[in-house]
């Protein structure tokens, strides 16, 4: 088998001492970031990108580091869900439902251990799915011409709001803003200056790393300040771990089902990790015998955790094979690849086979590291939760600024970062989602290039955009992605809110 031998080569890359070091570092940092309430995986990866970049790490090392941070943050998110009843990010919400009640009942250690095992199963199965599905999809995507690519980008934006998205027009608006920022700079094909106002610094456009850190990290600081989450949070005490093989066997089916559902919703555009953990939880609740769901059933911890970790790995499939990320964090990872001069997409699997398979193999290694790390050492991560955010947030901000400064040693970048932070704060106040903005900045140049390419080939005939069954299909899915949330979004949201209330 071709795939197997490529994967074996990948393991040769992933098992080098250097790669293992990056995977372990990433896993630890990621878990720390995920465990802190308020800092999700997207923030974590955003803060670390400039660092990886200015350290001049090789593409493979940077990507291993950041995917481990991503996986680690997905693991870490469960810690604050279980101990504080505060989800680190949206996908971790469902884990609160049974995790926190378990902790209150004096079974915090069991809940943490079960969730770690379920996270491992979720990621592991989804990574296998990635190995099987990604090369197939990449081969399929080789058939894409410029008009198909243009339709694909449109689809990515249309489905970004997700099924649970609230106001589709705001997603559209955010995407337009991002794409507009991407047009700043010298037009590559004609050399015409666009929106540069003759400022030298703008000739090369606006650096998306600065935008990402500003929009995510700095605006988060401003929000934190406003909410005045000043003091340390009261957490549930941790008991001594008493977990029998039987307990693990009991949650195995739930974990495996959760992993598969999560993977599928990760791969599908627009579904994402939130829906992954939601579906896994509700399905488990429905299929299981009359359990104690909502009151601390271990299966209610295992299913959503496996689901959200499965979705996290699943989301890498469209990102790596098509260059179209399905979630905020994968968008940030894409930014990283682009800034390393690697264009994701079908060609990635041919031109950078070493990199892709090295990273995939590193995900297996990273998950194993995370499992080993999370069971015995969970106490260390828990300690971090007792550090009040009033000390932590300023330090995180400082680290983010240092990272930005180190990329080009220019204070101007820092001004831009603060500017994006303020803009991000205002956007969040009027409910404009940030991820489409980032995605617009990232995909803008490629999207415009494919549009112009397609139109030049057809001599300006716009019907070329619908020239094949494939592109028509993509447009149809895009329209569906835009319309569906308006129809069924309110229903899904109401259901999610209802199950959350039961947990309260």
């Amino acid at each position, binding site marked *: 088998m071709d795939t197997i031998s490529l994967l074996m080569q990948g393991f040769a890359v992933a098992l080098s001492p250097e790669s293992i070091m990056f995977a372990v570092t990433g896993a630890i940092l990621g878990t720390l970031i995920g465990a802190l309430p308020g800092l999700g995986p997207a923030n974590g990866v955003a803060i670390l990108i400039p660092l990886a970049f200015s350290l001049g790490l090789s593409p493979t090392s940077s990507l291993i580091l950041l995917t481990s941070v991503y996986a680690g943050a997905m693991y870490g998110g469960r810690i604050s869900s279980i101990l504080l009843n505060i989800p680190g990010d949206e996908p971790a919400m469902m884990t609160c439902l049974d995790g926190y009640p378990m902790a209150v009942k004096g079974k915090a250690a069991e809940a943490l251990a079960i969730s770690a095992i379920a996270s491992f199963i979720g990621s592991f199965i989804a990574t296998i799915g990635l190995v099987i599905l990604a090369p197939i999809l990449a081969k399929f995507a080789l058939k894409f011409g410029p008009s198909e690519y243009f339709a694909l980008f449109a689809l990515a934006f249309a489905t970004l709001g997700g099924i649970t998205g609230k106001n589709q027009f705001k997603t559209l608006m955010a995407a337009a803003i991002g794409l507009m920022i991407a047009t700043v700079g010298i037009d590559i094909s004609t050399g015409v200056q666009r929106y540069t106002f003759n400022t030298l610094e703008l000739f090369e456009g606006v650096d998306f790393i600065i935008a990402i850190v500003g929009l995510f990290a700095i605006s988060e600081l401003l929000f934190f300040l406003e909410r005045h989450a000043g003091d340390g949070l009261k957490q549930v005490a941790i008991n001594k771990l008493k977990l029998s093989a039987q307990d693990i066997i009991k949650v195995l089916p739930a974990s495996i089902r959760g992993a598969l559902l999560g993977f599928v919703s990760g791969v599908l555009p627009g579904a994402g990790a939130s829906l992954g953990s939601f579906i896994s939880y509700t399905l488990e609740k429905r299929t299981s015998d009359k359990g104690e769901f909502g009151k601390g059933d271990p299966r209610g911890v295992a299913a959503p955790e496996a689901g959200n970790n499965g979705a996290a790995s699943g989301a890498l499939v469209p990102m790596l094979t098509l260059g179209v990320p399905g979630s905020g964090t994968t968008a940030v990872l894409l930014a990283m690849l682009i800034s390393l001069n690697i264009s994701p997409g079908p060609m990635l699997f041919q031109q950078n086979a070493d990199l892709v398979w090295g990273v995939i193999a590193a995900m297996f290694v990273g998950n194993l590291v995370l499992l080993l790390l999370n069971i015995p050492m969970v106490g260390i991560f828990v300690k971090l939760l007792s550090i009040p955010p009033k000390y932590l947030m300023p330090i995180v901000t400082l680290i983010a600024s240092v990272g930005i400064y180190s990329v080009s040693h220019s204070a101007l970048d820092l001004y831009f970062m603060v500017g994006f932070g303020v803009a991000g704060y205002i956007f969040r106040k009027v409910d404009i989602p940030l991820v489409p903005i980032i995605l617009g900045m990232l995909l803008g140049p490629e999207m415009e290039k494919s549009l112009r390419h397609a*139109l030049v080939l057809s001599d300006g005939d716009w019907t070329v955009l619908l020239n094949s069954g494939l592109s028509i299909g993509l447009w149809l899915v895009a329209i569906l992605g835009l319309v569906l949330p308006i129809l069924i979004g309110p229903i899904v949201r109401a259901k999610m809110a209802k199950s959350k209330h039961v947990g309260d």
Partner: protein
Amino acid sequence: MRVNDRVFGMLMLILAVAYGWQATQFPVPFGGHESVGPETFPIMLSIILGISSIYMMVRPDEDEKWAPAAMLVELTVVVLSMLAFAWAIEPIGFMPAAALVVSFLCWRMGASITKSVITGVVSSVSIFLLFNNVLELALPLGLLEF
């Protein structure tokens, strides 16, 4: 109240018009006009932004509460302190600038002055050492350079 979306939509509409108009003013590239020039994509974007901002003004969502005026002043001060840090990092140097801004931020987030200063100094010195000596990324010394 549904004011936020109306105001924001209005601003975005102005942006859309200005952006689209600017696109029509691009110089004709060398070699004459093509069917798709540098202005095609921007004009499309300005139309999308225009439509969605009009929608936002016509059917605004419920407002998210803005912070009270005192908090807005507070946030402005914090933003200014970060800009001051950006300005100070080169002439004054990383360590003093970072120590000041971190102490200030901790204090504004509700920590006591002593603890804020300790956090500021310890974090700036350790990050400096980490970056300069372990990661070998030079940060400006500024005043401490002699």
